[in-house]
C-alpha cells in the first residue's frame, strides 16, 4: 500500500522444523470448486484468518461474508445445504462451539444437513487468552448427534480431509490448520486420510501414543527423539474424533502391555483422552492410560511457544511426560 502499511495475516503456528505449505484448506477448496459447482464458501468476517479468502478471490460469486454474525453463519449454511449446495462455513472454533451450539444442532445436525463447519484456532493456537483458545470444542461438539468431527495433523491431511468431507454427505466439524506455513509431516509416512479411520503411523514396543490433530505431529517428533534414548514409541493417529475408530484403537491397545498415552490439543475434559478411557472401560480392556492434554481451566495469554510448554503440549513437553510415565 502507498502508506507503507501492509496487511499482515499472522501465522498462528509456532516456528516449525518441518517443510510447510500455504493455505492448504483454501487451496484444496479451490480445487474442489473447479470440479463441483455446489461448493460454496461462507465466513463471518474471518475469511482472511481461516484461509477461505483464497477461495473467495477465486470464486467471488460463490462466497458470502455474513459479517460478525456467527449464529446466522450456521443457519445460512444450513439453508444453502437444504437447497442442495455444499457450504463450507468458517470462523474461529471458539465461536463455533460456544456461541453456535443451538444453531448447529437445530439448523444443521438434527436434519443431517450437508454443512461443513471449519474451525480456526482449535485448542491452544492463540496467545490471546480464553476468548480465542478453543480448548473445549471437541467436548462441546462431541455431544452433537450426527456430527462427524475431524482434527487433521498437517497440511497434507488438511487437503486430503477437505476433499474427503466435501465428498461425504452429512454435517462435519473440522479443526483448521491455517496460515502460510502449515507444517507438512505425513508425506514421510504412507498415509491417506479416510473419514472414521485411525492409522498407525509408526510402531514401537514401549509406549503407544494415541493422538489427534497437530499433537500427532508432536508425537511423531517426540517418538523420534525418544528413540535416541532407546524408548520405542508407536503413534496411532486418530484424525476422526467422532465417530471414533473403536476397532483400531482397541486392537492396538490389546497388542501388548504397552503404556498408553493419549495426546490432544484440547482440554483434558471430554476430548480424545476421555473417549479412549471410556472405550477401554466399556470394552473391559485394561491398560495403564495417561493423558497429555490441556488442563481444565482458562489458559493464560502470552506467546504460543511458552504457553505450549507451560501447558504440556509442546514436543519437548510430550517427551518429558512420556519419560516420566515410563519411570
Amino acid at each position, binding site marked *: 500500500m502507498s502508506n507503507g502499511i501492509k496487511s499482515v495475516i499472522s501465522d498462528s503456528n509456532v516456528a516449525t522444523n518441518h517443510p510447510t505449505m500455504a493455505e492448504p484448506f483454501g487451496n484444496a477448496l479451490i480445487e474442489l470448486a473447479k470440479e463441483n459447482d455446489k461448493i*460454496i464458501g461462507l465466513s463471518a468476517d474471518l475469511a482472511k484468518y481461516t484461509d477461505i479468502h483464497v477461495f473467495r478471490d477465486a470464486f467471488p*460469486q*460463490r462466497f*458470502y461474508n*455474513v*459479517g460478525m*454474525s456467527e*449464529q*446466522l453463519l*450456521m*443457519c*445460512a*449454511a*444450513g*439453508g*444453502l*445445504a*437444504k*437447497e*442442495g*449446495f455444499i*457450504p463450507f462455513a468458517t470462523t474461529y472454533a471458539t465461536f463455533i462451539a460456544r456461541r453456535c451450539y*443451538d*444453531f448447529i*444442532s*437445530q*439448523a444443521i445436525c*438434527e*436434519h443431517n444437513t450437508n454443512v461443513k463447519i471449519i474451525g480456526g484456532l482449535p485448542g491452544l493456537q492463540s496467545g490471546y487468552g480464553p476468548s480465542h483458545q478453543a480448548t473445549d470444542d471437541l467436548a462441546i461438539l462431541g455431544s452433537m448427534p450426527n456430527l462427524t468431527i475431524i482434527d487433521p495433523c498437517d497440511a497434507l491431511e488438511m487437503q486430503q480431509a477437505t476433499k474427503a468431507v466435501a465428498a461425504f454427505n452429512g454435517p462435519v466439524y473440522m479443526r483448521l490448520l491455517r496460515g502460510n506455513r502449515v507444517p507438512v509431516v505425513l508425506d514421510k509416512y504412507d498415509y491417506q486420510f479416510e473419514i472414521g479411520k485411525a492409522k498407525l503411523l509408526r510402531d514401537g514396543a514401549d509406549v503407544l501414543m494415541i493422538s489427534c490433530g497437530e499433537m500427532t505431529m508432536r508425537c511423531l517428533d517426540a517418538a523420534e527423539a525418544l528413540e535416541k534414548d532407546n524408548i520405542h514409541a508407536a503413534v496411532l493417529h486418530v484424525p476422526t474424533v467422532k465417530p471414533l475408530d473403536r476397532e483400531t484403537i482397541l486392537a492396538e491397545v490389546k497388542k501388548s502391555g504397552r503404556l498408553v498415552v493419549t495426546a490432544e490439543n484440547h482440554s483434558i475434559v471430554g476430548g480424545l483422552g476421555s473417549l479412549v478411557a471410556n472405550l477401554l472401560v466399556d470394552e473391559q480392556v485394561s491398560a495403564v492410560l495417561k493423558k497429555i492434554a490441556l488442563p481444565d481451566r482458562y489458559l493464560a495469554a502470552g506467546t504460543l511457544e511458552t504457553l505450549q510448554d507451560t501447558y504440556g503440549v509442546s514436543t519437548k513437553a510430550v517427551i518429558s511426560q512420556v519419560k516420566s510415565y515410563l519411570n
Partner: protein
Amino acid sequence: MNKEELIDKAYEVRKNVLRMAHVDKRGFISQSLGAADFLTVLYSHAMRFHADDPKWEGRDRFLLSAGHNAIAVYAAMAEEGFFPKDWLDTYGLDNSRLPMSCMPAYTPGIEISGGSIGLGLPIAVGMAMGLKLKNSDAKVYVMMGDGEMAEGPTWEAAMSAGAYQLDNIIGIVDINGIQADGLTNAVMDTEPLHEKFSAFKFDVQRINGNSITQVMEAVDKARNSTEKKPHMILCDTVPGTGVPFLIGNQKSHFISLDAEGWERAFSELERGKD
C-alpha cells in the same frame, strides 16, 4: 381462490385448529385462531407448491420459525391436502406425524424445525441465497412471532437479507401481542417493528392480519414486487379471532378449556368477516 372463498376456507382452517387442540383439550389455541387468516391466504392463494410432492423443486418455501404455532400451519396445510385430515386427530400424541412443534422429519411440507425460536429468518437467508444461485424464482416465506423479535439472530439475518438484497424472502410477523411470560409489550417492547425492518433495508407493510383482503393485497404486492429488497409483512392479529369468547382471554399463551369451554368454542366458531 377469491376473497369469499378464502373467508370460507379460513373458517375450515379454524375448525381444524379446534379439532387438533381438542385432542389434548389444550394448546396454543388463541394464537393459531389469530393466525388462521394470513395462513389461509398463503396456503390457499399465494404460495406455489404441489401438496402431493412437497419437495418439488419449484415450490415456494414456507418456514415456520415460531414452531409452537405448528397447529395453525397444520390446520392450513390440511386444507390443501398435504396429509389426510384424520391426522389432525393425532396432534401431539405418541407417534403422531403432527408434533406440537414442527419438524421436517415428521410432517410432509414442513421445511425446518422451528421450536428454538429465532432460526427461521437466518435459515431463510441461506435458502434465499441458494435459490438465487440456482436462478429459481421460488420465494421463501418465513412466519415469525412478535415475541421472537427479541431474538438476536433474527436481526443478524435481517442485516444480511437487506445487505444482500434477498428480495425472494417474504417475512411475516404475527403480532399477536402475547408470549410465554405475558403480553409482548410487557415482557419486551419489540416495537417499532416497521421502522426497525425499514432500517434494515426491508420493504415493509403493516396490515390487519385478520383481514383477508388486506393480507391478499399485501402478499400479492410483496410476491410481485420488483423492488430489490427483502419483504416484511407485519400482521396485527387478534388471538382467538373466530371464537368470540376467547378474544380478550389473551393473557394465556397456552390455554386449556373444560368440557363446557369446548362446547362453547365449537358452537361459537363463526365464519370469518372482512
